[in-house]
């Protein structure tokens, strides 16, 4: 009888968890698995019968084998470089209090929205030629923010008490970091690493522009086979290979995140920050600022410089309807903002539901289902944009999902890319919440939904805002991610930039740079505004 009742209670909370998990599962099934599945299906079942002979062709081709190997290699090395640069940056931006910190925190995300061409122009201006090195540096440039934000989101909340304990026990700063801080950050670092790895694994623009035509990866090859050659058979095989690789990478990262989700004493982010004390701290801060300036500042400076070759005419020009536009390019700002708001909302809802479902699932059994969901939410980063884009075309062509030419398809595509970020930034923080706090709330009479609202939500709120800022930036910059989605006649800012770049003439180019500068400022401002948001009666945590 007792057992039965307890089981009943378990069932109702389990039902709640399943309902929570159903949101991301349904969204990703419809907007990712279905279109991708459809396009792969066309490739491997051209006439209705399964044709896997493509596999042999692919693996017999040493060129393709090399591409697979190279794709792994460059992604792994890029990830290592990004982590090495980004973790100190995360520390500085989450633990030191100094003037201009919030601006800097917003600025590090700017690379995410800059067109690859701008970056490559900057790298070339710096004397870095098209090469492998250029690819690695550019990957570090783009993904620095991923590490800073994913890791910093947790770091800002870590209680310093255990670090102090280690110091008192004779551990120096580095030792303390390695033995106490690092294990606590492990889930966040593993999360950042997996995102960066997947980004580099499927990176497109950087490889094309900075690698030169001699370097190709699975992603560029899939693009070529699909978009240029319409060779769906080979593309499908390559997509499956890519998928397998991505799943393997996700598996490794899940293992690296560790099984034990130790609750950490979390503190308000405002309490853990301190002004740098002592010359070592100041030197460390200075070194990191120098890295940021070199890595992030240079391209930005080059971009701004090239937007003003003859004063600000390029900016004023954007207010008039240029050749090739049906409206002034500056109007794209509003379109971009509107899409970004919708995309961010979708990503927060879907990613948030996934994060909470995962946080609860990992505490008890059902690890198998949890792992599957965990991998599923990462998948959007591991699937070719061209595969998704072409998949959309052939799946959403009938009611009720005749979305191919609806504007909604664009924010949905942006949200797909942003969801992994939301999950990876929010989940480590939720998992670190001491379960005793939830128990205390329950004892004080809060029912489960209320516990969630009063404990999980406010504590994860800051992380969610960080994730929201990121989602917003992803949507604003959306370029590489959704290049292949058709769009109705509304133009987003990056598309306007691309159009301007696609036209000959010096003025078009400086207008493109001007639009990029506007995009950058817009991004920085939006992120700062989002992170200043305060959810009512939650206060600042």
């Amino acid at each position: 009888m007792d057992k039965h009742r307890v089981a009943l209670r378990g069932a109702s909370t389990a039902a709640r968890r399943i309902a929570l998990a159903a949101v991301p599962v349904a969204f990703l099934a419809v907007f990712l698995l279905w279109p991708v599945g459809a396009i792969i299906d066309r490739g491997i079942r051209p006439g209705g019968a399964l044709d896997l002979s493509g596999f042999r062709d692919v693996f017999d081709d040493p060129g393709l084998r090399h591409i697979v190997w190279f794709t792994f290699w460059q992604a792994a090395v890029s990830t290592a470089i990004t982590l090495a640069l980004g973790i100190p940056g995360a520390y500085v931006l989450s633990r030191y209090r100094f003037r201009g910190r919030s601006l800097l925190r917003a600025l590090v995300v700017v690379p995410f929205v800059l067109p690859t061409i701008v970056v490559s122009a900057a790298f070339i201006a710096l004397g870095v030629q098209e090469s492998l090195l250029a690819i690695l540096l550019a990957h570090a440039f783009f993904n620095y923010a991923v590490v800073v934000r994913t890791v910093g989101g947790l770091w800002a909340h870590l209680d310093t008490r255990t670090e102090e304990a280690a110091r008192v026990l004779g551990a120096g700063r580095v030792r303390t970091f390695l033995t106490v801080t690092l294990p606590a950050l492990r889930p966040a670092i593993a999360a950042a690493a997996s995102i960066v790895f997947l980004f580099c694994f499927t990176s497109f623009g950087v490889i094309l522009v900075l690698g030169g035509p001699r370097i190709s990866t699975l992603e560029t090859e899939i693009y070529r086979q699909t978009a240029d050659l319409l060779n769906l058979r080979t593309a499908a095989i390559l997509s499956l290979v890519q998928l397998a690789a991505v799943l393997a990478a996700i598996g490794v990262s899940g293992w690296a995140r560790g099984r034990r989700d130790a609750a950490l004493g979390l503190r308000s982010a405002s309490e853990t920050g301190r002004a740098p004390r002592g010359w070592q701290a100041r030197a460390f801060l200075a070194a990191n600022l120098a890295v940021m300036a070199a890595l992030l500042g240079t391209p930005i400076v080059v971009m701004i410089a090239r937007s003003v070759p003859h004063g600000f005419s390029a900016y004023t020009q954007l207010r008039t309807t240029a050749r090739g536009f049906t409206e002034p390019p500056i109007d794209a700002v509003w379109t971009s903002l509107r899409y970004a708001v919708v995309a961010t909302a979708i990503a927060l809802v879907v990613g948030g539901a996934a994060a909470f479902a995962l946080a609860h699932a990992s505490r008890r059994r059902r690890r198998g289902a949890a792992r599957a969901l965990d991998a599923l939410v990462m998948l959007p980063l591991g699937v070719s944009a061209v595969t998704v884009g072409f998949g959309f075309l052939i799946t959403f062509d009938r009611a009720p999902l005749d979305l191919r030419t609806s504007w909604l398809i664009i924010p949905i595509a942006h949200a797909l890319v942003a969801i992994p970020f939301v999950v990876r930034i929010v989940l480590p923080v939720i998992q670190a919440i001491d379960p005793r706090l939830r128990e205390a709330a329950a004892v004080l009479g809060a029912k489960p939904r209320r516990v969630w609202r009063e404990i999980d939500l406010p504590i994860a709120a800051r992380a969610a805002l960080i994730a929201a800022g990121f989602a917003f930036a992803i949507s604003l910059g959306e370029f590489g991610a959704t290049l292949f989605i058709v769009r109705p006649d509304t133009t987003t800012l990056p598309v306007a930039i691309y159009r301007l770049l696609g036209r000959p003439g010096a003025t078009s180019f400086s207008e493109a740079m001007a639009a990029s500068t506007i995009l950058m400022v817009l991004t920085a401002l939006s992120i700062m505004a989002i992170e200043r948001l305060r959810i009512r009666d939650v206060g600042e945590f």
Partner: protein
Amino acid sequence: MLEIDHLRVEYSGKPAVADVSLAVPDGTVVCIVGPSGSGKSTLLRAVAGLEPPTSGTIRWDDRDLAGVPTHRRRFGLMFQDHALFPHRDVLGNVAFGLRMSRLSAGDAEARAREALASVGLEGFEHRKVRELSGGEQQRVALARSIAPKPRLLMLDEPLGSLDRALRERLVVDLHALFRSTAITALFVTHDQDEAFALADSVVILHRGLVEQEGDPQQVWRRPRTEFAARFLGFSNVLDARRVDGVVRCALGPVPAPDDSASGALRVAIRPDGLRVADAGNITGEVVGCTFRRDHFLTRIATPHGTFEVATAEPAAMGAHLSVALDPAAAVVLPAHADR
């Protein structure tokens, strides 16, 4: 009225509470004492519905609580490690339970302020909880659990990190609160003074089992097992025998209750039940002496074991002293009780 019946709670197969039966009648205060790790916190957690019982039942007013989730039980629990909400300020923590009970925000705040004042934390309303001293945190936790006036109040070490003066004041206040509101309470403490000052009934827990239970004075004066005796400060325990109705130990005859069995027995005496005599029964050498505020605790090694004796003056190490017994202070126990 809370009734716990043959409760057993296990953590991964190992029992933390092995088999506890206990009743807390309405309006009474029951205090649980016991060594570290004996299952006190686990017992409270099980009553609050935070740990599922492995077996046994917990009932409130004859209703089985098995299917009732924590937030519906309307029990209060002050956690041993406080579990304050780091994202709320002091007032927000204390007002939390009041808000959950659908009090208006204004009323909740007023009552929270009252509760804070009662633990001496006026003016701390808007402090961050992580920036409080240990004792201040504990008082916030206490105020938080008391403020919503739960029908059963459970406190896990409520005054552990407070200084004596403040603790005595709060003991008096809690005592008044318990009496005036006829609150039903179950609390855990390591401070036996506190336990004996506040409780209507004391329960000694040992390895997840009830070792002894009863009226505080009764328990204090007449422990029934060797474990309980040692736990309550009867640090001198020696063998005894009952011969012809008289119980004798190395220190002399001891008055025995009628019901004690004959044959091998044990006798337990507190340090203040022994004294240094000019001609005691046993003589030994002083091996230690520490100051204990109002007396010295002198350790004297004798052929019958080492005795702890309360003395008014410090004793020199190595001195030879005799030990005598105040027979009224001795308690007779069955031999080979557990441990």
